[in-house]
């Protein structure tokens, strides 16, 4: 039986969600998405000036992928709602990743404005994925507001520092009934694997793949790591102990029997 992630009324096979920023070219990005077998892909919205008419990113994202526009650039709930409505009007589905940020140094999300935007957009039928600081009461409020998943950060966006919020995210996983998807800061496949072993439903990775020396190879590595972590979680990871527990028989081998 396939271990599919049910989210937003869809079943997703690949639990590695991939962001499309910072790739050296759309062509490299396309090959990375294909190599990873990505099912869910995030994009951003921006003003289009006449100089950006040549190439369109949508032409480089495999047709079968679920597109998740983010609301990056939004500094409050109203702006996030405005961006989400624009993205839906563009005809790319009704998934949206809410990202409301006022802090330019750490790019940490504003949970309260994120909640307000989630309430409005969920009522309008959007599949809302809020990027959030891992706080249990806020996560519960996001669930009540109709979020399809919560997306706590692992560490600041683009920092490649890994899952620094581990204990808080573990609390969300144990207490929240909707998918918990770690978003931001995962710097290597082992970081992603660790999240999946913890019981995250998926992870979203962008920078670590996009700026790798070989983004295509790194996309595959992340995808495999996510699969391995998910398998390990399903198989039940044994408790760790302080002392040794022999894995070979301890009976005397070459010694004389008494």
């Amino acid at each position, binding site marked *: 039986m396939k271990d599919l992630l049910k989210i937003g009324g869809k079943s997703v096979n690949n639990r590695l969600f991939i*962001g*499309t*920023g*910072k*790739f050296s070219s*759309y062509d490299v*990005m396309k090959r990375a998405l294909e190599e990873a077998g990505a099912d869910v892909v*995030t*994009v*951003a*919205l*921006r*003003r*289009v*000036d*006449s100089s*950006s*008419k040549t190439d*369109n*990113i*949508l032409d480089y994202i495999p047709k079968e992928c679920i597109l998740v*526009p*983010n609301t*990056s650039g939004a500094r409050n709930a109203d702006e996030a709602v405005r961006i989400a*409505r*624009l*993205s839906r*009007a*563009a*005809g*790319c589905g009704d998934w949206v990743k809410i990202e409301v940020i006022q802090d330019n140094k750490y790019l940490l999300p504003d949970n309260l404005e994120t909640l307000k935007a989630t309430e409005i957009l969920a009522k309008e039928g959007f599949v809302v994925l809020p990027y959030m600081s891992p706080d249990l009461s806020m996560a519960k409020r996001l669930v009540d507001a109709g979020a399809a998943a919560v997306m706590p950060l692992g560490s600041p*966006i*683009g920092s490649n520092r890994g899952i620094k919020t581990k204990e808080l995210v573990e609390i969300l996983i144990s207490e929240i009934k909707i998918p918990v998807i770690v*978003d*931001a800061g995962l710097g290597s496949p082992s970081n992603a694997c660790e999240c999946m072993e913890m019981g995250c439903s998926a992870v*979203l990775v*962008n*920078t670590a793949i996009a700026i790798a020396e070989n983004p295509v190879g790194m996309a595959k590595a992340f995808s495999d790591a996510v699969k391995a972590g998910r398998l390990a979680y399903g198989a039940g990871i044994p408790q760790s102990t302080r002392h040794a527990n022999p894995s070979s028989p301890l009976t005397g081998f070459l010694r004389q029997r008494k």
Partner: protein
Amino acid sequence: MRLRINGEDVLIDAHKTIMELVCGRGLRPERVVVEHNLRIVPREAWPETILNENDTVEIIGFFGGG
């Protein structure tokens, strides 16, 4: 006449439609979304939506992002 397009003042011929504006900029209509005076205009309505002096237009498209 003067319009504010993507935050910049732009002079264009009078009585243009949104469709003419978008295509005139070399953009593919199916790849952008237009907000006219803060209201999203569905693509079907672009050919008959005429722009007026001092209107605000945002032309938005998709880019890479995480």
